[in-house]
């Protein structure tokens, strides 16, 4: 499949601990399987302790790009947490940006302490609709809980990305990579999580 743009830039945003790195690796490995150049820049370090984290994926047919996406150059934003979608679109969005967003909030301590307010989901949706070309809000955490643990949220979101068809990858390639990454007992539930994610978009 050809890229709609070269490089194609994807950002996965979330909060430390939500499994950004696993999600970015799955997508990255699927793309390398299809012979693309892929560069991933993940947030490492102290931010992993409850901070805002991002994974930048740069996908190209002809060269290896840097692991950082320049301002305003995101083509697709995948947010594991709703305000993280806003944080990222503010810096990296443009009128053609699409977004897939998990609607379950993780409250920053500033909010629980009472120093800051968390916006309503309606307000977040309204803002994203205004700034993104296309957007999907999905209840990935709820589905993850129904599968047994919140940690499946990231795989469900990878499924949702597959469902959008915005990346040059067939469903089979994702599934092959999931097979490779989760050998043994964890495979089935992860494949199920992925499939549930795909369904969220269709």
């Amino acid at each position, binding site marked *: 499949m050809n890229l709609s743009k070269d490089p194609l830039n994807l950002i996965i945003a979330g909060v430390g601990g939500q499994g950004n790195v696993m999600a970015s690796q799955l997508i990255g490995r699927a793309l390398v399987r299809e012979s693309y150049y892929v560069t991933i820049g993940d947030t490492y370090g102290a931010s992993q302790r409850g901070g805002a984290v991002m994974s930048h994926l740069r996908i190209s047919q002809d060269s290896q790009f840097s692991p950082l996406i320049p301002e305003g150059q995101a083509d697709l934003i995948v947010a594991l947490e709703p305000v993280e979608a806003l944080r990222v679109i503010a810096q990296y969005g443009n009128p053609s940006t699409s977004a897939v967003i998990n609607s379950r909030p993780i409250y920053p301590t500033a909010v629980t302490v009472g120093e800051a307010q968390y916006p309503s989901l309606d307000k977040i949706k309204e803002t994203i609709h205004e*700034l993104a070309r296309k957007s999907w809000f999905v209840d990935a955490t709820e589905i993850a809980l129904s599968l047994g643990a919140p940690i499946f949220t990231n795989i469900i979101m990878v499924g949702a990305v597959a469902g959008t068809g915005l990346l040059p990858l067939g469903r089979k390639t994702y599934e092959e990579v999931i097979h490779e990454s989760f050998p043994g007992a964890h495979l089935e539930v992860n494949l199920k999580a992925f499939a549930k994610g795909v369904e969220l978009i269709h």
Partner: protein
Amino acid sequence: MSVIKKNAPGSNELLMGNEAIARGALEAGVQFAAAYPGNPSSEIIGTLSQVAKEMGIYVEWSVNEKVALEAAASASFAGLRSMSAMKQNGVNVASDFILNLNLSGVGTGGLVLVAADDPAALSSTNEEDSRFISKLGDLPLLEPATFQEAKDMAKWAFDLSESINSLVIVRSVSRISHARGNVILGELPQEKKTARYDTSKIFIPVAAPLRHLALHLKLKKVQETYETSPFNWYVGPEKPELLMVTSGSGWFYSQEAVRTLSLQDRVGILKIGTAWPLPSKLLAKHMANAKRVLFVEEVDPFLENNVKELAAEWSPEIGSWTFYGKSSGHVHPFGEINPDLIINAVSKVMDKPYAPREANYGKKALEMTKSLVPHRDLGFCAGCPHRATFWAIKNALKLDGRGGFVTGDIGCYSIGLGPAGFYQLKTMHAMGSGTGLATGFGQLKQFGFNQPVLSVCGDSTFFHAAIPALINGVYNQSNFVMVVLDNSATAMTGFQPHAGTGETATGSPAPVVDIGKLCSSMGVRVETCDPFDLQGTTEKVLDLVNQEGGVRVLISRRKCALVKAKGEKAAYKVHVDPEKCKGEACGCARLCTRIFKCPGLIWNLEKGKSEVDEVICTGCGVCTDICPQSAIIREENR
């Protein structure tokens, strides 16, 4: 399945820069690797440790970086290819050994040190450029610019080391080490060397001036090799209007800047992978074709100043130049560089305007989101024992009332500097510095000083560098309490085992070095507590603080919540009883959500009550003990 050990030459894989370095070392036939974890370097040795047994190599987590490099050097002296990897601070720790090893030379087995710098201190306390150790120690330096090069350079570095019997340094940065990209695998060698020390050889720096001279001759030889190295390349027109000279991740950003601004016909990029000694003839050849030169590199102007030094020697025969870079202000000389910064630098120098996106959209996006996006402070994870320990320390020092304070150290608990640790830490420097500082504070009584002093350090930090400070305190009879925050892991860097965990880097059982017994053997009073017992811990801290004179040690022991979550189920199911929680009317000032600040506790604004977020809560049950209404209920998880 680990691709690191895949013997499939030509296979195209997605590897983290650190994995690529590890793979390069394996392709070179490395047999011995030792390191102390520190980001962004940790996954190099971490990756090797996972395949060590199967591939018949030796890998260890050493007690600190100096010992790691010493251990690796001994394998080199015995004829094996060996390596060490460390973050910039580690290079500082190892520098005394490095600056003797340069003179003694290495053995017949190549020895490679990977120094991984952390521009912008993403996972560090400081920012520094460890390339200077190469210049300082007359040691060859390589700087990978891509993931492929990270592998290829790590491999070739062993050949280079053996060709001149010298330590070789490979310098990476976070955006190479911790990023991922395509790597084409090479072949894995099958043969293993036998280790033997040739007793006719000595490794000493003695006759230092002569050895120093010999080192300079080695570097001359390296420079000749570097002139034709495939790690240096040029792309662009024959006579560029602007020549960009770059190294490391600067290559990515330079390439992107030229492409984004469509300047391929006017701007050339000379990418230097052999960063010390510089390939002088190669640089002169390309600089003769340009009048303007822009330097793009991470952290300090290392290339920039060294090239300028060469240019001063070439001028006026080859020409004169206008230089742009860190000294001109086009690239800032601190923090991290990125594509935007370099696109803007080239845009300015070439007078070619650049707008990242439609100006109206950018303005609208920032305005619409500004008031909606709350800041995320770093905090301790839900169920983290450090929060509980700092809570107890805070309360004990308040009860004591003499203005006691805590000297901090390096680890997850450094977050104790901020709101998550109730602002308890007042200092933070190098590994072990908290206790070193405490030994000094503890000597100030004769100058009227009467405040209690506590130092904190983690279990891994204790072994790394706090022991000498503790001994100093004992010997000189300093007055302070050392609190060892023993969470049974090197948590901040990825949960690597250490001397106190009973496990080696490769997962074999190991003797446990008992921190308590070690301290007791020095004759100091040692107490142990479970930080989740908030009252008991507070009382112990208070008691230790009140015992004036000499060093006292408190070991606050609880397994890291993240380590625990990997192997055990939650101890409790926790919820808030909405009948009992009085909310703002309680008078507790929302102790749980506003002050204790575990991310698993949230405040329901509409109901005016606290709640437990089931997605975040790890079930430690500690918050049950802080609620004055006993509204937080914990039920044993069966």
